[in-house]
């Protein structure tokens, strides 16, 4: 008893050391933790009961400690003054090969009361605390329920769902009390579903019917599976319930069909936006300048790797997952644009400027450049894909009536719209754009009236390449970044430009959206590859019918 008192005093002292907003809360926490430690130290005979008394207590320390116990990672440490304390060990040994003992109640290193230094142990020096079948069952009961009051809403929803799946009526009161205090709408829906799920097995037929209709209006997929199971079972449910289940099934399935359609549509639009971002740079270099840049895909990869490098710089300055890290992507966008534009500038000066009159040969030379660039990526960044971590604000998704809108895809759509707008403004509202259009329409005439065509070519090509770099930066948030990533998209991008009508930004927008959505809508029906093949053949046939694409450029010239 005295020992316990000393321990709780020690804990109170520790609790006071940490900034706690509310004294009462701190006291509640301390008592819950004291109870936890008491349970952990309790004699074997009463231990199971002591653990069960933890059911329903709200404390963040309980679940990790019990989980560690169950996994055989909890130890009893005897301090020099004879008191014993439960502890976990640091996962990786320090440089001296020693493990630090961490106190169960707050995760800080356990201090030796004599020297006030952390207690160190060699690996395997301590034997983990034993569990018996009886204890494990008690632990499971505690953990099952503990999740419901977890501070993290996502964990809360998960464990509520799991409780619902157990179909045990004994959990009902817990869930119902939780429903009264729960404030987050998403968790409330999950709670309602779990309660209805348990009530499906209720003795009262009225309650059962109510549960069915509540699940139907919640469009629960697991409920649909359970309804199917119940309808197929041999002692068929009563007629009224069977009918209710049938209508509920129909309602749920219709709902999910609509949801899937809109989900695919959204994915299609975002895939189209990616295509658009890639194709826009190509539309400028190919459509406006008549240069076939087979290295366009590699310019995109330059942008993606630039993002990777910026990310690594931010990680080394701010640390992974820190607040500052979240801004790396914003910094990466201009870097990607500039890097790709510089590489494009080099390419234009080194190779393409000699080939404006020989477009077929520009295809070959730039293909050579693309091979060399790919090999360079391989040598610099290694042949494997590199790891790019999305900033926190691009992770996760928003749900609008069960249709998930992933933030990164939303971002790509918005960004593509911005880039199209910006590109259009540059081409139509700036003096550079005016010069670009003049050179495109008639290179010789423009040159005659004093336009420096070589400079305009350089700028245009660099601008188109920079757009490729932006596309690469965006793609790094959606998929893998590797040396051959450019090859995956280049043919699609060419198809967009050709089928949209060369030299026409609006055409590229329509074509990429069309190709993206058709591809995504076909995929669930035909599979990923067949859908793509079908789209390719459809484009080939479409171009036979309209060789100029969707919006052909009208001109009186023959060739």
């Amino acid at each position, binding site marked *: 008893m005295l020992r316990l008192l000393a321990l709780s005093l020690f804990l109170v002292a520790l609790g006071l050391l940490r900034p706690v907003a509310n004294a009462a809360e701190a006291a509640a926490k301390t008592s819950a933790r004291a109870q936890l430690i008491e349970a952990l130290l309790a004699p074997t005979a009463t231990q199971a009961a002591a653990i069960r008394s933890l059911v329903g207590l709200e404390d963040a320390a309980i679940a990790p400690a019990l989980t560690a116990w169950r996994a055989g990672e909890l130890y009893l440490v005897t301090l020099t003054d004879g008191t014993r304390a439960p502890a976990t060990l640091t996962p990786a040994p320090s440089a001296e090969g020693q493990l630090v003992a961490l106190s169960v109640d707050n995760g800080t290193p356990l201090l030796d009361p004599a020297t006030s230094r952390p207690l160190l142990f060699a690996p395997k020096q301590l034997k983990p605390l034993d569990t018996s079948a009886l204890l494990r069952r008690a632990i499971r009961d505690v953990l099952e329920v503990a999740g419901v009051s977890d501070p993290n809403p996502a964990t809360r929803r998960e464990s509520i769902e799991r409780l619902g799946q157990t179909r045990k009526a004994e959990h009902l009161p817990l869930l119902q009390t939780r429903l009264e205090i729960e404030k987050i709408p998403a968790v409330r829906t999950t709670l309602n579903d779990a309660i209805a799920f348990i009530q499906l097995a209720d003795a009262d037929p009225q309650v059962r019917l109510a549960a069915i209709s509540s699940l139907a209006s919640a469009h629960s997929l697991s409920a649909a599976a359970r309804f199917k199971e119940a309808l197929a079972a041999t002692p068929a449910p009563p007629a009224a319930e069977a009918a209710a289940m049938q209508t509920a099934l129909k309602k749920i399935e219709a709902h999910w069909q609509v949801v899937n359609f809109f989900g695919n549509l959204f994915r299609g639009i975002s895939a189209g936006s990616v295509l658009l971002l890639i194709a826009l740079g190509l539309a400028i270099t190919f459509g406006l300048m008549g240069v076939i840049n087979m290295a366009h895909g590699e310019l995109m990869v330059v942008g993606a790797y630039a993002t990777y490098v910026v990310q690594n710089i931010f990680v080394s300055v701010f640390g992974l997952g820190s607040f500052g890290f979240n801004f790396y992507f914003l910094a990466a966008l201009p870097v990607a644009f500039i890097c790709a534009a510089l590489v494009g500038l080099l390419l234009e000066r080194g190779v393409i400027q*000699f080939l404006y009159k020989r477009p077929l040969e520009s*295809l070959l*030379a730039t*293909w050579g450049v693309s091979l060399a660039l790919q*090999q360079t990526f391989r040598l610099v960044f290694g042949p494997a894909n590199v790891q790019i971590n999305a900033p926190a604000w691009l992770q996760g998704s928003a749900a609008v009536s069960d249709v998930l809108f992933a933030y990164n895809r939303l971002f790509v759509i918005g960004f593509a719209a911005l880039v199209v707008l910006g590109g259009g403004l540059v081409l139509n509202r700036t003096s550079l754009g005016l010069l670009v259009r003049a050179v495109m329409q008639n290179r010789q005439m423009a040159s005659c009236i004093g336009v420096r065509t070589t400079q305009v070519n350089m700028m245009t090509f660099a601008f188109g390449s920079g757009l490729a770099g932006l596309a690469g930066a965006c793609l790094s948030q959606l998929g893998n970044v590797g040396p051959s990533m450019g090859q995956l998209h280049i043919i699609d991008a060419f198809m967009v430009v*050709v089928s949209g009508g060369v030299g026409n930004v609006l055409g590229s927008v329509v074509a990429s959206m069309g190709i993206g959505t058709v591809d995504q809508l076909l995929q669930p029906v035909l599979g990923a590859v067949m859908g793509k093949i079908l789209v390719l053949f459809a*484009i080939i046939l479409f*171009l*036979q019918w309209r060789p100029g694409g969707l919006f052909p450029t009208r001109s009186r010239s023959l060739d």
Partner: protein
Amino acid sequence: MSASSSLSAPDVEPRFFSRAQWASFLIPTLILAALLPILNAVLPDGHWLKPSIFTLNLYGKYATYAVLALGVDLLWGYLGILSLGQALFFALGGYAFGMHLLLMIGKDGQYKSDLPDYMVFLGYKELPAHWEPFYSFPFAICVVLLLPGLIAFGFGWLAFRSRIKGVYLSILTQALTYAAALLFFRNDFGFGGNNGFTDFKRVLGFDLNSDETRRGLYIASVVLLAAVFLLYRWLTRAKFGHLMQAIRDGENRVLFSGYATARYKLFVFVLVAAITGLAGALYVPQVGIINPSEMTPEQSIEAVVWVAVGGRGTLLGPILGALFVNALKSWATRAAPELWLYIIGGLFIVVVLFLPGGLISIPGKLKAAYAKLTAPKPPAAAASSSAGTLH
């Protein structure tokens, strides 16, 4: 430039080959097709003149590549169509013949079944109906010629009729090849997925691993190359050849002179596709495998590089280019694998920028440079004449 070439081309020669040209065609052909195999068969092992069977096999492979390159050249160098789908036709011929070879394995495969190994592996119970006729060698050869021809006809008829040309045609053929490669990469398309066909045992009853069969396949490849060379030479020398070059240089003028240019283009496109398919069929038993990586756009572009390196618009150039680039590739992928992409990429750029005539134009350039050095008197005339022969 069309004017200058028509002026400088009174080359409607009465003869197909002059006597010297016949000699320079027949002597290398006989050496390659007859002397080397005889030396290989007769001389004892280790003799310094004896070409190894490995060498012959390699040359046979190069010969089929050279046929592919000749096709690319006839289309690109003479007709002005840069088709990036020639590897597709090559691989289709290879697949059609591979089907025959696969059935000829009989029960000697891994699973001792009548079915090809990969079908057993994928759980087929019986041979699909469209495979049955491939037991017949003549049928397989017909498919080798007809299937690429038909696909070329379908694609070409649509494309040339709607007057798709230049870069657009290149991109479309590339997309076609890409789509086909994606299709063949799928397991459920029924052609072995990305492993393709391999492990062939015999052709026409001969063991594929014996020296005799390998010599035979080598001779067949060289003879095919020689025959295709003669055929294309005849085509380009005839009035037809002049028309082809006229279409390349100014299609509209030819069209307005009353020629249905689309039909000429279609004819050459289909002919080349069929012949390329045949080359693919000879390629497969010599390398012992055919898989979808042979029909990617990359492969097609590589064939274009052979032509560009050798010299397009000539018939000897593509053969030289195919030999040179592939020999370089076999050497570089062994000696410095990480540099190979730089080498081929650099080759592309250098040839396109500095040597549009390819390797074959080097002697002429050297001669011109030498003539310039020895007789530097009339600079204006020399400059104008060299400008005239640029294209």
